[in-house]
């Protein structure tokens, strides 16, 4: 019984330990994340020719990166990039992440180049990539041409090429007289911010057979803010005779330019690519009159000629514009407006409640660089919360500049009640015709702010308690970060009961074990001791001292059962022994034992006893012990 109880306890305890220990640990484990990353540069080809493309990739094995600074690509031009991509890969549960920037470059000039290190920020650390060397060799086509003339075949080939060259040069000269692009700028001097109108006009002799025309490259207007006019379809708009030749012309591009820098600015030429069909005379005729241009137009059916298509690039001249700075001093409230303007202000309400927005509108109307006009600056009371302005444009672009209006709308939210004035705002612009600054002052507004229904959560208290609560007089100052939780004291105090419990538990188990051992030993030796006692009893019987015999026999039996069943001497009674014997399965012996013990007790207290009876009792006792020991085996 006691053993099973013991086992039971043990199981409960192990369960209990299972819960306690992990939950103590969970909260106090800090995980340190070691940081490491690499940043590498790679190139798909280290050895290229002029004009070939190279792809260069900068790769970092982290996903969260910022502040990428590419190196300078000396000797190369960037065709594409930077293009970014990120990867996440999971192999056998290992997650690897990477982020890359790549460029496609074109080699521009021969030589050996080193592409420097790119920089990147990863978790606050600046990483630098490895530099890369690229060798750029001259293009092979050119090299072939430079190879010394060897065979006659090559010679002939070269001759032909030479002829082709002169032919196309002559064709180029011819076409340029009959087909050209002109740039027309309406001013050659302007103030910074003054609109300038540029037109590119194409002139074509109608008798020239132009097969196709295209504009592969649009001009860039560096130093200008530019707005191109939309031309849906290029159409001939008139004809003009220049140097005795009658041309038809068409406007191919119209641009409004607003100079942003001062000094001499250039307006880039417009480039167009044409394919023109010309009649080329055969070898003989050409020797006499290589082109026979007159024949070409007058009599196209004249025999002996064939047609060829030539590519021609028509380019206008480069425009020049002298940009003057605005006269000094520039007034304080100058809002970048150059032109002639009107300035008006309006307000949508003059009575509002707190936290209810109203809007202020400033409208600039007129002609000039309207799109570049900046919003006016408001100086409002701190109680009027002002938001960044929104603007609304209604602008037509004309050859004289931008005409229309621009409206700036400020949303304002009053935060506390009262009467406020919205001060007048000055709008200053420069008139380039009159060459001076003009100032327009807007109207002044007043607004009445009433207390609103809606209240801020924050201002809930302000009505009840107008002022802050008073300071506190008493305190106990502590050193910083003196937290009991997570301190050594906390761990000591929390381990104390657990350790005590473990000690008690171990102590109890140990004690039980010891008791159990004694019981086992007694059980083993029970018969041995009993036999000793019984032989002692036989001696008394032989000697004829009957009372001592009974006493010894009784003691032998009691001791035997006490050892056998681990019964304490206090509990040694014949009824108890009988019960325990029955419980342990010695039913047949229990009856006899009971009788023996009863007779022993009776004999001990009654003076008249018989020797025959004593003899019988002794054999009976020996029999019981023998049988019980046999059963045990």
């Amino acid at each position, binding site marked *: 019984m006691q053993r099973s109880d013991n086992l039971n306890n043990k199981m409960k305890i192990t369960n209990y330990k299972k819960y306690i220990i992990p939950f103590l640990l969970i909260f106090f484990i800090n995980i340190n994340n070691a940081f490491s990353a690499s940043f590498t540069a790679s190139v798909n080809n280290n050895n290229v020719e002029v004009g070939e493309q190279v792809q260069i990739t900068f790769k970092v094995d982290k996903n969260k990166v*910022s502040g990428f600074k590419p190196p300078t690509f000396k000797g190369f031009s960037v065709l594409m990039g930077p293009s970014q991509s990120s990867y996440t890969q999971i192999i056998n549960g290992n997650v690897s992440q990477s982020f890359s920037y790549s460029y496609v470059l074109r080699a521009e000039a021969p030589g050996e180049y080193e592409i420097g290190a790119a920089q990147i920020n990863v978790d606050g650390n600046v990483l630098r990539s490895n530099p890369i060397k690229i060798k750029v060799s001259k293009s092979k086509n050119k090299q072939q041409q430079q190879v010394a003339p060897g065979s006659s075949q090559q010679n002939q080939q070269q001759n032909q090429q030479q002829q082709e060259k002169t032919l196309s040069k002559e064709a180029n000269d011819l076409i340029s007289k009959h087909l050209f692009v002109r740039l027309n700028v309406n001013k050659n001097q302007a103030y910074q911010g003054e609109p300038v109108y540029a037109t590119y006009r194409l002139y074509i002799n109608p008798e020239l057979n132009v097969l196709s025309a295209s504009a592969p490259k649009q001009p860039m207007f560096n130093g200008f803010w530019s707005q191109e006019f939309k031309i849906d379809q290029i159409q001939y708009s008139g004809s003009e005779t220049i140097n005795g030749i009658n041309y038809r012309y068409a406007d191919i591009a119209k641009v409004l330019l607003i100079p942003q820098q001062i000094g001499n600015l250039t307006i880039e030429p417009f480039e167009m690519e044409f394919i023109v069909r010309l009649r080329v005379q055969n070898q003989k005729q050409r020797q006499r009159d290589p082109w026979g241009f007159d024949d070409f137009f007058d009599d196209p059916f004249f025999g002996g000629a064939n047609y060829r298509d030539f590519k021609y690039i028509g380019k206008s001249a480069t425009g020049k514009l002298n940009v003057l700075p605005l006269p000094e001093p520039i007034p304080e409230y100058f809002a970048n407006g150059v032109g002639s303007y009107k300035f008006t202000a309006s307000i949508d309400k003059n009575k509002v409640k707190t936290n209810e927005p109203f809007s202020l509108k400033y409208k600039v109307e007129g002609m000039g660089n309207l799109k570049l006009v900046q919003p006016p600056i408001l100086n409002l009371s701190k109680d009027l919360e002002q938001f960044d302005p929104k603007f609304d444009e209604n602008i037509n672009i004309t050859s004289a500049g931008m005409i229309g209006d621009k409206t700036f709308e400020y949303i304002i939210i009053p935060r506390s009640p009262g009467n406020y004035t919205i001060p007048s705002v000055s709008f200053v612009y420069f008139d380039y015709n009159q060459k001076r600054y003009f100032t327009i002052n807007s109207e002044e507004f007043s607004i009445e702010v009433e207390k609103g229904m809606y209240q801020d959560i924050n*201002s809930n208290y302000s009505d009840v308690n107008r002022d*802050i609560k008073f300071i506190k007089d008493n305190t106990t100052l502590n*050193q910083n970060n003196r937290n009991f939780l997570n301190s050594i004291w906390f761990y000591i105090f929390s381990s104390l009961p657990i350790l005590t419990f473990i000690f008690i538990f171990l102590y109890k188990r140990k004690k039980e074990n010891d008791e159990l051992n004694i019981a086992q030993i007694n059980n083993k030796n029970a018969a041995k001791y009993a036999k000793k006692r019984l032989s002692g009893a036989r001696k008394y019987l032989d000697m004829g001292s009957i009372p001592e015999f009974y006493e010894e026999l009784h003691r032998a039996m009691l001791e035997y059962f006490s050892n056998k069943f681990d019964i304490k001497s206090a509990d040694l009674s014949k009824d108890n022994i009988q019960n325990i014997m029955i419980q342990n399965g010695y039913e047949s012996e229990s009856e006899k034992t009971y009788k023996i013990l009863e007779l022993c007790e009776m004999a001990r207290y009654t003076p008249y006893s018989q020797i025959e009876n004593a003899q019988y009792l002794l054999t009976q006792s020996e029999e019981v012990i023998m049988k019980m020991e046999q059963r045990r085996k």
Partner: protein
Amino acid sequence: MRIFNKLNKIAVLLIVFIIYISTNNLVLFAENSKSNIDYQALFKEANNFYKSDNFIGALEKYEKIYNSGYKSSELLYNIGNTYYRLGNYPKAILFYERTKKLTPNDNDLNINLNLANAKIVDKIQVIEPFFIYSWAKNIRDVFSSNTWALLFIIFLFIVCGVYTLRLYSQVPSRRRKILSASGVVSILLCIFSLTIGVLRLKAENSNANAIIMQSTIDIKLSNDPASEIAFTLHEGTKVQILEFQESNYKIKIADGRQGWLPTNMVEVI
């Protein structure tokens, strides 16, 4: 018996060790309380300055205590009050919020913090959190982390006591059943108080919030000085720090908007 003797020896050693540490700590405590007295006196002086409307003098003394590493909720609260009186509302809010980390349920503090918040430019509509979240927060804020830790230890003693009694109780008995049940209950209480205590400790030591110290600041859309402006904030506004990257914080304000700002524009609560 021999094993038990060994255990006995270990127990004795452990007890000696505990006594040794505690005496050491007591000496430390005694030293602390020695210098502590000076700062306590300084605190009183500062309070007197405050009472005689010498706020600059009071602030100087309070800051001296604060900078020496001593801290209490009352000190932080008084510093907040002094800044409020000096009209430096962002700093007042900063110190009130620092007080709030230690004593979140102080009524006076909450009144003053609301008043200071009414004085700043930005009025941000606070999104009401999910009610379970605010309940949990209220439970967490009932006690300080130290009290929760103490509760944990008390419950731990109860757990061990109950299980010791259970060890010596008779096997099939009512007493044993009651002890088992109360043991389970006290284990649950143990786990609860430790969990809440750890959460409270995290809140007390958190650096997740900051106050804007710059009068006006443009919050950028991304961690790049050239990026577009998401919105504008003003001094005194509380922001939640979500992320740190190359001297910039990613922040979130009470209405849920997010953006980036330089770290030197804010002070961490």
